């Protein structure tokens, strides 16, 4: 099966500033992918490269087997919802649906109309007068009305209140359940990711820090707590992702393909949030990265 996103050494610079460097990904189809990272990490850039709004400076990216933005057929396969859910403020909701019908050969009029009605929106209302949550719902309807094979959503719920957030995600998951759409959803709300995502991509400082199925990642990582010791005294085959020491105690996050053998340590599972934070904060040759603007409901 074609990977939904295939990137090789993908890079994008704006002048001197690198927005994304050396990004390699093979994202399999049939997943809801969480793209997480602090501001400026490159999430928006990656999504725009995937839908063809930007062209790579280095490397390549293929989406659903084609070049992003390459023609009407490719554009029809990929739905994109930009940050802040842009719509045409002067056009009414009904006009937006007409827009969708006119510009998309695969537009499903009944589906879109049913969605709008289900949301309780008045088709005659001008889109500029909608609340944030309603705009997001309208924009999602426009993006999904053409039944794309892949949906790209750039921080779709960041500025929504908790109820609107929940409603939006329900609608999104309904689309996935109904049509089997693959989704890539960027956010810094880790709790929402846990609920809906089964594949994770962690970005920080313009680089991919971690990518994989959530289940495999959580199964492969463990917290090891023990008396103060060096990392190399841990069993072989265990990769140390992070290490913290006090004068008496050491805490390691390790990654291991096989279960960690027992020894004089306590081994505990790693939650998704800890996993993401650790990989984001990790020292890299480029320097330490501190997470900014990360929200958590914990």
């Amino acid at each position, binding site marked *: 099966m074609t990977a939904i996103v295939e990137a090789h050494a993908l890079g994008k610079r704006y002048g001197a500033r690198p927005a994304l460097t050396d990004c390699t990904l093979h994202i399999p189809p049939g*997943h809801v992918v969480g793209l997480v990272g602090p501001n400026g990490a490159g999430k928006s850039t990656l999504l725009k490269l995937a839908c063809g709004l930007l062209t790579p400076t280095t490397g390549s990216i293929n989406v659903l087997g084609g070049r992003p933005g390459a023609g009407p057929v490719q554009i029809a396969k990929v739905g994109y919802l930009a940050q802040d859910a842009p719509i045409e403020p002067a056009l009414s909701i009904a006009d937006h649906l007409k827009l969708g019908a006119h510009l998309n050969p695969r537009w499903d009029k009944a589906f879109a109309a049913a969605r709008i009605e289900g949301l309780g929106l008045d088709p005659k209302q001008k889109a500029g007068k909608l609340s944030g949550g309603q705009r997001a719902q309208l924009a999602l309807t426009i993006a999904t009305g053409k039944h794309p094979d892949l949906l790209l959503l750039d921080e779709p719920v960041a500025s929504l209140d908790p109820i609107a957030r929940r409603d939006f995600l*329900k609608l999104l998951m*309904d689309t996935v359940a109904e049509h089997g759409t693959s989704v890539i959803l960027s956010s810094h709300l880790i709790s*929402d990711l846990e*609920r*809906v995502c089964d594949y994770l991509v962690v970005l920080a400082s313009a680089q991919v820090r971690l990518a994989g199925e959530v289940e495999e990642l959580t199964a492969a990582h463990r917290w090891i707590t023990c008396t103060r010791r060096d990392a190399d005294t841990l069993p072989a085959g265990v990769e140390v992702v992070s290490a913290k020491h006090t004068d008496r105690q050491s805490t390691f996050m390790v990654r291991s393909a096989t279960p960690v053998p027992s020894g004089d340590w306590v081994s505990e599972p790693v*939650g998704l949030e800890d996993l993401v934070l650790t990989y984001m904060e990790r020292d890299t040759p480029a320097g330490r990265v501190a997470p900014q603007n990360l929200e958590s409901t914990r």
Partner: protein
Amino acid sequence: MIEFRLDPNAGVASYLQIVQQVRQALLLGMLAEGDRLPTVKQVVGMVAINPNTVLKAYRELELEGLVVAKPGAGTFVTKSLAQPSITEHEPLRRELEAWLAKARAAGLTEAELDALMRTTVRDTADEEK
């Protein structure tokens, strides 16, 4: 129909929470043999959750022998876990209701009731050992 709830802070994976809640429903008799579990779409409408997670939970339940998936029709309960003992003990239940009425009239708050019952259950269990 059974309502699902997801608690992100529970430290338990989403699919396991679904499994647990189905088991609990079976235990309490809210689901009986032959009942149909909510469809994936229905669950997604209740809680914003990845459809794959629901499918995974249902598969797990199927492996445990509690449900069976019939393609095109849905997922159905095959085994009831409801302990007949719970439904049979009506007299005990009525006695408990009377006691609760007295306790509430005496001014106990819900938390105090809860604490009183728990400690008594535990203490008497220890005694019987």
